[in-house]
């Protein structure tokens, strides 16, 4: 790793101020950042650790019934605490391994927007709102392609608000080496329609499978999915672990399974 200065603000205000520096970057749980920095693929002069900022940790429910999760909340805390949204809790519980979950945060995951990450699927399918100190961003506008988001330089995710669907489930087919999703699908059924978000498959990052959403909004059943053809493999990821055709196929299989599992 290149060396850097580590600052440890204890308030959001101080964190925001510290991140105003040109070459400052937020450090969440470090579970993506530190391995990347070891490979010398990421580097800043100053890192601003968010772990001491109590204001952005924790889980509550707002007046609209949304589950609101502080940007600095760890995967482990979401797995334990998001009891009103079991599919979300279960998603968090399946990220990485226990030690990773004790450090990694939802803000870090969403800010990073790895094309194979779990939370982006949950947030997009749930129609979540990503909050920063100055604005609220709808999930549909937030995810802008692999590792690309609507966040500005230095902008911190303070909170993520998840509307709670009537039914939802997350089905993850793992890439056996990294244990990230090879393909994973989050299905969320709301009173006004179904949202299906797919991660791991597309080189554009998380996306909504609109044909499946339409079919499921009409008929929320696995059969509705089995009647569709798999999404086009154009733009799907091809790598050692599966080519685009296989990934496209898995999208369909995992979607059907998520629908079956949805409670």
């Amino acid at each position, binding site marked *: 790793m290149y060396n850097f200065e580590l600052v440890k603000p204890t308030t959001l205000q101080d964190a925001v101020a510290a991140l105003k520096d040109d070459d400052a970057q937020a450090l969440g749980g470090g579970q993506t950042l530190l391995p990347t920095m070891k490979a010398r693929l990421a580097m800043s002069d100053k890192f601003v650790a968010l772990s001491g900022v109590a204001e952005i940790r924790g889980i509550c429910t707002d007046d609209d019934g949304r589950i609101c999760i502080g940007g600095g909340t760890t995967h482990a805390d979401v797995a334990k605490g998001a009891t009103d949204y079991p599919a979300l809790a279960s998603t968090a519980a399946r990220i990485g391994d226990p030690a990773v979950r004790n450090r990694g945060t939802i803000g870090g995951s969403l800010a990073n927007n790895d094309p194979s990450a779990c939370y982006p699927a949950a947030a997009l399918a749930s129609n979540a709102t990503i909050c920063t100190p100055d604005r609220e961003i709808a999930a549909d506008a937030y995810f802008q392609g692999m590792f690309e988001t609507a966040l500005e330089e230095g902008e911190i995710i303070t909170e993520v608000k998840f509307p709670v669907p009537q039914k939802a489930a997350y089905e993850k087919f793992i890439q056996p080496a990294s244990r990230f999703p090879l393909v994973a699908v989050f299905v969320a059924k709301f009173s006004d329609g179904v949202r299906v978000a797919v991660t791991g498959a597309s080189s554009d990052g998380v996306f909504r499978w609109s044909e499946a959403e339409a079919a499921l909004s009409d008929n929320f059943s696995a059969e509705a999915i089995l009647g569709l053809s798999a999404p086009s493999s154009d733009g799907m990821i*091809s790598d*050692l672990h599966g080519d685009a055709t296989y990934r496209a196929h898995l999208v369909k299989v995992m979607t059907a399974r998520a629908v079956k599992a949805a409670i």
Partner: protein
Amino acid sequence: MPKDTGIGASPKRREDVRFLTGKGRYTDDINVAGQAHVVFLRSDVAHGTINGIDTAAAEAMEGVVGVFTAMDFDGVGGIPCGWQITDREGNPMQEPKHPILAEGKVRHVGDPIAAVVAESVSIARDACEAIEVDITSLPAVMDMKKAVQADAPKVHDDLTSNLCYDWGFVEDNRQAVDDAIKSAAHVTTLELVNNRLIANPMEPRVAVGDYARHDDSSTLYTTSQNPHVIRLLMGAFVLGIPEHKLRVVAPDVGGGFGTKIFHYAEEAFCTFAAKQLERPVKWTASRSEAFMSDAHGRDHVTKIELALDADNNFTAVRTETYANMGAYLSTFAPSVPTWLHGTLMAGNYKTPLVYVNVKAVFTNTVPVDAYRGAGRPEATFQLERVVDKAARELGIDPVELRRQNFIREFPYQTPVAVEYDTGDYDATMDKLLEMIDRDGFEARRKESESRGKLRGLGINCYIEACGIAPSKLVGQLGARAGLYESATVRVNATGGLVVMTGSHSHGQGHETSFPQVIADMIGINEDQIEIVHGDTANAPMGMGTYGSRSLAVGGSAMFRATEKIIAKAKKIAAHIMEASDEDIELKDGKFTVAGTDKELAWGDVTLAAYVPHNYPLEDLEPGLEETAFYDPNNFTYPAGAYACEVEVDPETGFVEVLSFAAADDFGNVVNPMIVEGQVHGGLAQGIGQALFENCAYDEDGQLLSASYMDYTMPRAKDLPMFQVDHSCATPCTHNPLGVKGCGEAGAIGSPPSIVNGVLDALASGGHDVGHIDMPLTPAKVWAAMQGTGGTGDGTAHARSVGGPAKNV
């Protein structure tokens, strides 16, 4: 009743206490006062000409102690190869130079170009980034079959081609084999890839070089399975340091699996630089570095043909293998696809005619050498796959086909040079069938089907050659070393004893199991016996641990040394008790005189040896210390039968291993607990090879599986509990302990079971797939079910190395 001490007991491992409390002393835990750190600048292209290296900026950086390139190694030898193969024409193999730092050309991603020694790892790394290397990329030589074509670019410009050797075995049988195949009633053909693997011991390699000015001696601490071999190779061939001025220490080593046998450039570098700079120099590999610098394993592309007569007797086997050597010849690389592979091609069967052809090929990849099993897994896999395929083609039971062809008379001279001393293949097969409830399989398959899953049962046999090796024989076969083992038994005055063994434990538990043998021989407590290994300063010249040889060869050396101790102790006892030597018996730590009630405690005799007052000084030297070198007169031949049940998810191609059973014949077993642990570990690696692990390069020679993000290490969740049995024991007839070795069996015997099982599952779902190349990832299995992957016609892709999984 299980025993609680001595041979056959399972005492708890004494080494565990230090490992469990954080007190192990691994090489990276060693820091020598004043040490500097080295970081290697490694090539990021697979093949290229080095036009120039500018180190000025790096040298000028604060904290940099020294920057080295190939120029600094003028007059220093290359990394030697320990085995020379003679080709079909009788010519020696082509042997390229393997410089410590790349000379003129880089030949694989990870090839070290320069080295920076600095006050800290970070400074060294920063300085590496400041080195400017001007490289012209050349086309990468990746595909073995293309590499041997006349117009292929060459990995080594000074060699005539990329062909290291073209080996035929047994060349005299060639015509007869060809004829037998032509006239066979049935021939089953299979082309397959034995996937390239990375051993991945959890401890990455480390080397610390130290130099003592006062006596001009060098010390190397290294993560090695065989410190004496490193001392010999590095001292004599690379650096020109006489062995008495060079000490090599391999302390606690965190797993080896073969990849820590070899002498590596980094070891030579640290030893060399420490002397040049007169400062200790330490290198700790990162895991990423390990992926591109540890010797890889396997990587064969093979065509095998099995000929059968009208009664389904095997009449001939013919194989043609392309074996990847990588860019340079690692220490034992040439022996793996030849003597460790060709000699096992008879398997458990009395096939009268066998011909093995192996073409070893240089490519722009990391060198390939022995990895757990080394050659024997490759032999077992092709043979046990082709037998299974033959059974399927002929519509007969795969177990019966095997049984019908089993060797039943021992000793058995195979047509591939080796002679099996003993074995009972029916016994292990019977045992296996008892373990797996084969009769219940159909019901279990139905149950899986009711859940939408396809269930398969895979069965196979294996035989391997362990206890490596008779020195005279391997010398004739091209080994440049002997393969005996040594032990010094030093009895102390108070009766305790220390064994200095040339074997090395890096997880095998010698500190616990070796004392069990001696405790039985003398009748003293195991805790009076200490095992010391891993330091050339105190152990006699030994060859180390690999090839499941520790107990069979190292244990036998210790046995012989202890016999000498006992013989001498008896003479002392006879003198004291005024009896004749022949009448002395040693039992339970007491010397008695036959037919009398005279007795003398072990401790009284050992004391007398060092306080020789009442002692036959005229006939006998004082002291009680003996050394033995044991050179085996044959290999040992562990064998067994393995089976697994797998479930395939037809929607995704995902394979779950539901159960795995192993019935092994290891001969006598000293510590059943340790033996079972060895088998478990081997099974995990074999299952890993079959389902998960794949060292893959792309066409340009970039390593695709360059970290645990892409190289799948089996996890707890990926494996079932194993059923293991070693009760069918036919003791080895030619070593004093009757042991055969158990370290590699699991890795050798398990891959064909898995593949046979998956294909069986697919067949039950109506998918007639002839073969799928390992690893059987979900993507590949699914593609095979779609008729787009797999190799229904039994034709392997010509690729030498994995590459992206393509559904073609």
